[in-house]
């Protein structure tokens, strides 16, 4: 268990190092105009270099077992089933929002997220979601003049 816990932290450190690598690599691809005192690359080098140092420090402390960032370890492992419902809600929303429009897509997302948080009243949640999405859409449209995308219901309103 101790061993397993340190792995996430180590992965974060390596991830930060990788990000630093990407930034430094990108910096190399930018042509620097000769006339600028401080070209567009300098900031990238500073930030990439800083991230590389920080990533190394994170990875080192994690590997040495001196970094246990997990808050409230006694709360148990993350609830993967709930996260799956939530993730599903977000993915479906991205996939259908253009076809069905903001209001219907939001209604579906609302019901699925409520399910992720343990609500079993699918119909009630859907109705509330629809009401919130409608209110938000009309509020933004009528009060602020901002149209939240086009869609089936949006065309009627």
């Amino acid at each position, binding site marked *: 268990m101790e061993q397993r816990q340190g792995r996430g932290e180590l992965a*974060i450190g390596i991830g*930060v190092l990788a*990000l630093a690598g990407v*930034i430094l690599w*990108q910096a190399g691809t*930018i*042509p620097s*105009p000769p006339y*600028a*005192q*401080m*070209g*567009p690359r300098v*900031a*990238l080098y500073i*930030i990439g270099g*800083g*991230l590389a140092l*920080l*990533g190394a*420090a*994170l990875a080192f402390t994690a590997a040495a077992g001196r970094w246990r*960032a*997990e*808050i*409230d370890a006694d*709360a148990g492992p*993350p*609830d*993967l089933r*709930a*996260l799956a419902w*939530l993730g599903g809600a*977000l993915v479906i*929303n*991205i996939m259908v*929002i*253009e076809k069905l429009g*903001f209001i219907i897509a*939001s209604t579906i*997302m*609302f*019901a699925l*997220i*409520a399910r*992720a*948080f*343990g*609500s079993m009243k699918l119909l009630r*949640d859907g109705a*509330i979601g629809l009401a*919130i*999405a409608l209110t*938000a859409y009309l509020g*933004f449209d009528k009060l*602020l*003049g*901002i149209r*939240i*995308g086009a869609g089936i219901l949006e065309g009627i309103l």
Partner: protein
Amino acid sequence: MTETLLALSQGFAIALTPINLLWCLFGVTLGTAIGVLPGLGPAVTIALLLPITFKVEATAAFILFAGIYYGAMYGGSTTSILVNTPGESATIVTALEGHQMAKRGRGAQALSTAAIGSFVAGTFGTAGIAFLGPVVVDMALKFGPAEYFALMVLAFVTVSAVLGNSAVRGLTALFFGLSLGLIGVDNQTGQARLTFGITELLDGLDVTQVAVGLFAVGETMWLCSRYRAGQDEVIAIKGSLWMSAQDWSRSWKAWIRGALIGFPIGALPAGGAEVPTFLSYYVEKKLSKHPEEFGQGAIEGVAGPEAANNASAAGVLVPMLTLGLPTSATAAIMLSAFQSYGIQPGPLLLQNQPQLVWGLIASLFIGNIMLLVLNLPLVGIWVKLLKIPAPLLYAGILIFATIGAYNKSGSPIDILILYLVGIVGFFMRKYDFPTAPVIIGMILGPFAEQALRQAMTISQGDWTVLATRPLAGSILAVAVLAMIGPRLWQMASRAR
């Protein structure tokens, strides 16, 4: 002095117009609501409302934003007293004693001392902005780009490395934010940076997406991963809100001390309400005639930190309005609203936009009075908000978060970016990285680069100016001290 009063009276003339009063009322009401509700903070709310900058004139928008900012402070204390789940880190201390008071049937008095203390400190802090602001501006007008750059470095260090649990994690969050700020076309040389050939990224990442993604989406994912059915109990308010004579006499000194601690710390380009609230709690515990009550509902332990919290929130507006230097996530997002109006933040703001600045300050005084009414006689309404079941609350929050991304361009790509940032936020939360430095780095980074470039142009590429100009050098020295000082102290005390 008289100049300030004159300017302030003109500010009141602006703030007291019916339309601006309405914006102020709307702001403080919305602010209280989102302060009470867990999961939505002032930074997210203002980020979601940024599109109104295209519709509403600047003064009105900033009156609205500042109202939300102040209101969230009041609302947050209600939740930490009655539910003991502090919505913001600044109200952790309030929960310590406030929730104990509520458990012992003194919730009403805890709410009263918190609200009145917030009012006293908020008014004191707002007066502080009005009188300290012009002084800071006079000093800042003498600053060159090198000094500005040094000040920003100082702010970077204090928000990321001094506060929080770990300097390395704080700085990592900051540098991550700085790199997000670089995405897009470099406005000086026209080179695309970190865009990976994706056209959507040429304009840079939107602060709304990042703030809402980190704070709202990431927080929802985090809570979802550890949410087990069952809800926090909301303690009902019993009896009258009136405080006894003893409550008053124990509270008023704590309010004043809290305000005196909070405002200067907030006004330093350091930010963070955690330090003043903890400091105030510690001071009250030391000075109290009833130290045995601490931990079991001592009223001073609510009064002092609440006042410190609000005074420091007001203090944060001083560097924001006079230097263009945000030291909290909310202030950083307000700064991006300036950008959206094409208003240059900084010491010239007071000269170029006096009606905006003074109208804003005046409306903060008015907003404080509205907030006192909203949060004392009407506190019952807000308590009802706490009864919203978590599934509905968080599902609703994600609908609003999605709007923030989708109405930018009407493209699902922006929603995808929002959710990806949310995943980053989830892991930052899981591994205890602070998120505010990301937003501050993202907004302030480009300004820092610009200042550094100007300094380099003036010095013809000589980097030593940063150290040899006396003011810039001393500010940078303070920044270095702030970073390594606490660690040296730790090592020294361990060695002993």
